[in-house]
């Protein structure tokens, strides 16, 4: 019997994970976190650190919001969530300054701007505030990974075509004339639109979308 329970719990975790990474992917399903997606996806190094920071903040804030969910008065829950998220973002910023000063310097203001990433608030309010800590942790990590996959998918063509490099390593030879527009803001719009298009073509539409005929907003 305990085996059975474990299996059920595990399959529920897997469901939550799959939903976060793909079925309800924050970027191409929920259209959340677009600002940072457009802003930092022109260099691979920045993208990877941003993704790691976001996964950490998302997982920690989801667990904390979930642990406090039965004690937090309903009407101040948003303020409490913002406070929790801000605290974790500051921790990330301090740790980057202390242990990865070069990367912290390169990311500049973007680390602080994780606070305003709608995905974190969206998951805290939409999932963690009504679910136990373990599924909330899984949901946080999954949504973070879902965000990162799209970010990386957008960054690869942008950095490669825009500068001929990946992780600052020259991959395309002298013959390649960099498409500067790819590292400029318009390049982000092209790359994001293409990524969303390709991902949505290959993703099965969730049941809700089939009924309403549009993505959840």
């Amino acid at each position, binding site marked *: 019997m305990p085996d059975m329970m474990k299996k059920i719990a595990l399959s529920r975790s897997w469901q939550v994970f799959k939903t976060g990474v793909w079925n309800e992917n924050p970027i191409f399903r929920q259209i959340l976190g677009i600002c940072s997606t457009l802003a*930092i996806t*022109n*260099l691979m190094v*920045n993208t990877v650190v941003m993704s790691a920071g976001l996964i950490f903040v998302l997982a920690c804030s989801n667990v904390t919001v979930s642990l*406090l969910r039965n*004690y*937090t*008065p309903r*009407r*101040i829950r948003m*303020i*409490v969530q913002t*406070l*929790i998220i*801000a*605290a974790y973002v*500051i*921790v990330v910023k*301090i*740790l980057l*300054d*202390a*242990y990865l*000063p070069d990367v912290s*310097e*390169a990311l*500049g*203001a973007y680390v602080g701007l994780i606070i305003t990433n709608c995905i974190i608030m969206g998951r805290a309010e939409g999932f963690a505030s009504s679910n136990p800590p373990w599924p909330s942790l899984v949901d946080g990590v999954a949504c973070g990974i879902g965000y990162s996959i799209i970010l990386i998918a957008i960054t690869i063509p942008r*950095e490669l075509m*825009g*500068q001929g490099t990946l992780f600052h390593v020259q991959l395309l030879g002298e013959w390649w004339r960099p498409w*500067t527009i790819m*590292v*400029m803001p318009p390049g982000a719009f092209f790359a994001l639109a293409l990524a969303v298009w390709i991902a949505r073509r290959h993703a099965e539409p969730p049941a809700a979308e089939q009924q309403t005929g549009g993505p959840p907003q």
Partner: protein
Amino acid sequence: MKENFYTVLYMVLIAAGFTGVTSGVHLLNRERIERNREAMRARVVLRALGIEVRRGAGFEEIEQVYRQRVQDTGRTVTIREEEHPILEGLDEQGEPMGYAFEIVGRGVWDAIRGYLAISLELDLILGLAWHEQNETPGLGGEITREWFMAQFRDLPLPDEPGPDGRYVRLVPAGVEPGEHDADAITGATGTSDAVQEIINHALGRFMQAMAESD
């Protein structure tokens, strides 16, 4: 009433708790962050002077090299109403090889700060490096990349500034750079203009300071 009291108390406790956690993390890492900042500045001075520090070197190593190879001349240069010490770089034998001083100006988004190194004869820019900039990553942010900074390594300086008051120019793609020129960054005209202005302004002030102190 009771509910209101609980809400206020809850908010105060949560705020105090999280402030405590972030302050604690900050206190634990404060010294490290301070030393990182110092080391970064030292590294930038060394880079401008063309003195290599091993990639990935910790702050102790950087501080040690800095103590051996850089000294204060006691002279200063005033750039945009800020007084900056003129430092002197020493070669491996401990002989003076050039000057370095902080340069500053407005970039596209925020202030840009760096160090510029000039040869003892004041006829070459030895190098240039930045320690503070918030230019657009991938565009203006390219000023921190090796290809851009390498252009200023041993760049000859004219005896007198040109008719436009400039010592060096950043020329756009397609224009053949002259003896005292470097390539601008394509797609980042604002940053290129800002850098050109910062360098020329600083050079003017520095030459003046050196002429006055002689």
